[in-house]
């Protein structure tokens, strides 16, 4: 059989990172079978795999490349996101060491392997230039996450979360798939570029099935990134999942969801997109407001941050709404900062929590006196999430709001700004509990040395990207140029 009919060596070179990660994941699973019961080893191997893959990606330089006959499309945009997924995966693995044992589980080979598979899935999602590829990536990601969420098989909450995520995730996948089918039926292709050229011929622009297809596709995405009203699954899942998995779940997959959504909109539907702007306007306003108002009423820290992450997704929709290169780079910048803040705060939560407890706001009372550095880092993350200067959260929010104002969405920005004001209240409440309330039950945070160091690094990032964000902004701008380039080709 002549394989060169199906793919070339250039195609294989393009997916080297995925291949490396797959081999690493398999290696970890093999190590597990050899009954070497040293959890640290699995994590180490997985981390080495992630770093190697990252190195290969950076070396590739992010030039525009189409692989496998247009199935994958690599460019600066995908490079930016790939690095983000790999970094989030790496941070999650570092934080996970020791956490699962604390919660009564045990680190087995499948935990790091699943994280690696999830990373591969996310990379395929945003590298894809074809609806089938997006679906493949999405499924690989989701299947890994279903298991990870229910990983603590002793914990009822974790089991419930896993099942809930599985059911609703499957449901949303159905929407996605049905939408893709309808789009294929009307345009005759699943390839993004072919879809766009079919639409630009004009005859099917007003086709009801096409609109239905796009609508269903969007619902699928909205489920994945938890936009209101498709967010119901996320608080329960975030709360029930092991905290390190929650940290992973609320950062990288959300980035992947937004990344794939942006790519689909920009490449496949540049002409249809203008008809959908009102929908995104409403989604943004609803997601921000419902997320924030619900977060106000939470007393469980994990649940509060779950709702807060819903509201952050709402801010991100501002960038989707704008969909020019400025908006795109604002979204990318925001995703990085959002990941840094959430990873950091969930890592601290993971250190503080104990078996089935230690998650209430009142459990944080007196943390400042016993663990001043952890409390200070948590304060930084909260301040940044609330969008206060001089932290990175402010610059990130400003980028999105400014892009939206530049495109005339003034009232939406007013809503967003009011939402920011509301959100300050619940972020501050955690700080108040750490610093101002009487000391409560004794808490003895447990964390490993690498985890503490990583928390410190993330906290420093929050400051550095707030005071000197130019470098990262520049990278995000380069990655965001995809919008310019592709819009001009149509």
């Amino acid at each position, binding site marked *: 059989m002549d394989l060169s009919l199906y793919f070339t060596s250039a195609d294989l070179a393009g997916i080297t990172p995925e291949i490396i990660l797959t081999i690493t994941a398999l290696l970890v699973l093999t190590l597990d079978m050899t009954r070497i019961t040293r959890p640290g080893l699995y994590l180490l191997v997985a981390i080495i795999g992630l770093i190697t893959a990252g190195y290969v990606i950076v070396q590739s330089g992010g030039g525009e490349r189409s692989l496998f006959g247009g199935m994958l499309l690599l460019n600066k945009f995908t490079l930016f996101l790939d690095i983000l997924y790999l970094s989030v995966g790496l941070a999650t693995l570092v934080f996970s060491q020791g956490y699962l044992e604390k919660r009564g589980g045990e680190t087995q080979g499948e935990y790091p392997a699943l994280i690696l598979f999830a990373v591969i899935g996310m990379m395929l999602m945003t590298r894809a230039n074809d609806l089938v590829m997006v679906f493949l990536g999405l499924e690989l990601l989701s299947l890994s996450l279903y298991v990870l969420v229910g990983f603590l098989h002793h914990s009822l909450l974790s089991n419930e979360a896993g099942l809930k995520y599985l059911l609703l995730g499957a449901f949303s996948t159905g929407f996605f798939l049905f939408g893709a089918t309808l789009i294929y039926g009307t345009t005759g292709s699943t390839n993004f570029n072919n879809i766009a050229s079919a639409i630009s011929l004009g005859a099917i622009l007003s086709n009801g099935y096409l609109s239905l297809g796009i609508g269903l596709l969007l619902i699928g995405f909205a489920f994945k990134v938890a936009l209101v009203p498709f967010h119901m699954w996320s608080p329960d899942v975030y709360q029930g999942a092991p905290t390190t998995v929650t940290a992973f779940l609320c950062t990288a997959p959300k980035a992947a969801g937004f990344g794939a959504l942006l790519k689909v909109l920009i490449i496949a539907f540049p002409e249809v997109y203008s008809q959908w702007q009102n929908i995104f306007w409403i989604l943004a306003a609803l997601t921000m407001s419902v997320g924030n108002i619900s977060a106000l009423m939470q007393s469980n820290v994990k649940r509060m941050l779950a709702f807060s992450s819903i509201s952050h997704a709402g801010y991100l929709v501002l960038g989707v709404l704008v969909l020019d290169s400025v908006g795109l780079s604002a979204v990318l910048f925001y995703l990085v900062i959002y990941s840094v803040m959430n990873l950091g705060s969930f890592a601290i939560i993971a250190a503080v929590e104990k078996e089935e407890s230690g998650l209430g706001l009142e459990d944080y009372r007196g943390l400042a006196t016993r663990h001043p550095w952890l409390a200070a880092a948590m304060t930084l993350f909260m*301040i940044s999430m609330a969008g206060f200067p*001089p932290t990175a959260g402010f610059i990130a929010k400003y980028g999105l709001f400014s892009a939206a104002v530049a495109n005339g969405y003034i009232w939406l920005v007013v809503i967003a700004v009011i939402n920011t004001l509301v959100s300050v209240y619940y972020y501050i409440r955690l700080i108040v509990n750490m610093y*101002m309330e009487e000391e409560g039950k004794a808490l003895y945070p447990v964390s490993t040395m690498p985890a503490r160091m990583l928390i410190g690094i993330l906290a420093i990032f929050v400051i550095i990207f707030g005071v000197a964000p130019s470098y990262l*902004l520049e990278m995000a701008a380069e990655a965001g140029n995809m919008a310019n380039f592709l819009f001009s080709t149509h």
Partner: protein
Amino acid sequence: MESSILTLLIFVPVAGAVLMLPFAMLYGKENAHYYKWIAAITTGIQLVLAGILYLNFDPALSVTESPFTVQLEWIKHFNIQYFLGVDGLSIPMVLLTALLSFICIISSWKIDKQPLGYFSLFLLLDAGMMGVFLSLDFFLFYIFWEVMLLPMYFLIGIWGGPQRMYAAIKFFLYTLFGSVFMLLALLALYYYSDPHTFSLITLIHTVGSIDATIWGLSVKYLIWMSLFIGFAIKVPIVPFHTWLPLAHVEAPTAISVILAGVLLKMGTYGLLRISYPLLPGEVVNFAYILAVLGVINIIWGATNAIAQIDMKKMVAYSSVSHMGYVLLGMAAAISDSPAGAQAGMNGALMQMFNHGTITAMLFLLVGMLYDRAHHRWIVFPNDYEKPELAGQQGFGGLGAKVPVYTAFVAFAFFAGLGLPALSGFISEAMCFIGGFSVFRTLTIIGTLGILLNAIYFLRAYQRIFLGPLNETYKDLTDISHRELFTLIPLAVLILFLGVYPAPLLDMISPAMDGIIKIVQSVI
């Protein structure tokens, strides 16, 4: 040196705060000694730098010509500059901030609860205040404005009185509410101006040509209103003032001093720095309302102060009243008599400076009494925790017991009620002169404030210091050397500027003339 002095003014305190971290790791967090010395030295350096700035300051030069101006690219992506400069409008505020910060560190010498946190937050607050007064880029201004907020919140919320948490969150939410409007104004100014810029100097020339409308309201009007809400909360203009008495009463002494001495001025400073030059047309339309609000502040603050039996709350309300003079003076910028406009505007800025020194002295003195007596009731309230004292006078006859302290209180009270030959008199009189040239009736009503101010200050003085000595306080100690050290510079300034205000006036008047010219050009 000249171009780095402004940067140093802002970042020397930050460096001090960062320097505390290695000390915390080596010597523990509770070792107050190191932290207060670091704080004293850094604010001392800042004060010296401010002094150098003052000596080399040339009022005749505009911001763009001044050798101190720094203009660098900061975040290129968003067109944000690191643009600092000093002119006649900002230099009195810079001097005031440096002086009060230093004095407040000295007066906080006895803080022993979490000293690391207290002094490092104080230094960050100091940096934020300095940054606000020196920024000439609106974005930078906004960043420093927000940077002040969190340290202040913690300083009230952790080191304050019994109701500190409520007071802190109220202060915080009010101010944040205001800054949200400011953020919207910032975005609007940027996108409606052509070319897009945050530079407050360039914006002066470009804002005038904006003629867009949103929902039938002109964008300029909306920007003015957003800015006004943001600044009015800070001043505070009645009815946005309810956070102030609470925050003052609960805050520790030094923080009350900063709050009343510097933070309140930021509201009026913002109006003069941003709203006035950028939106002169709106100033002209709004001046009458501004004067009305000013007079309401004067009367409302003073009558409320009369009703207070808590000394600190009385002083807090007196601040509300005194800030009213500033508003009245500022409104006079539209006066058709040049002398009236000048008197009003210069009076307003001088009142900002003078009230800063006077109110600082008042709060320091109240704090000193509170440190010794552990209460500050002029008259005990009816629901006081010790029922046998309810309704009784809190003090009495202290004059014979602590004569030096009494002399300082008398001095500060007289300065507060505007006695001639003390600085408050000059600036208040100038505000009234300016106001009278435009708003006759209003100003006449406003002058009632002088009388009302006299009522509460004199009555409080009489109840606390005159009459027979309250036996509870027969062991009261007089003022210490450290406390004297904090009071004397302020007293000297108040007396000097009361007798000879020319140095301050000469320094500020060219800048104020510039603003008057901009406002007058659209009438």
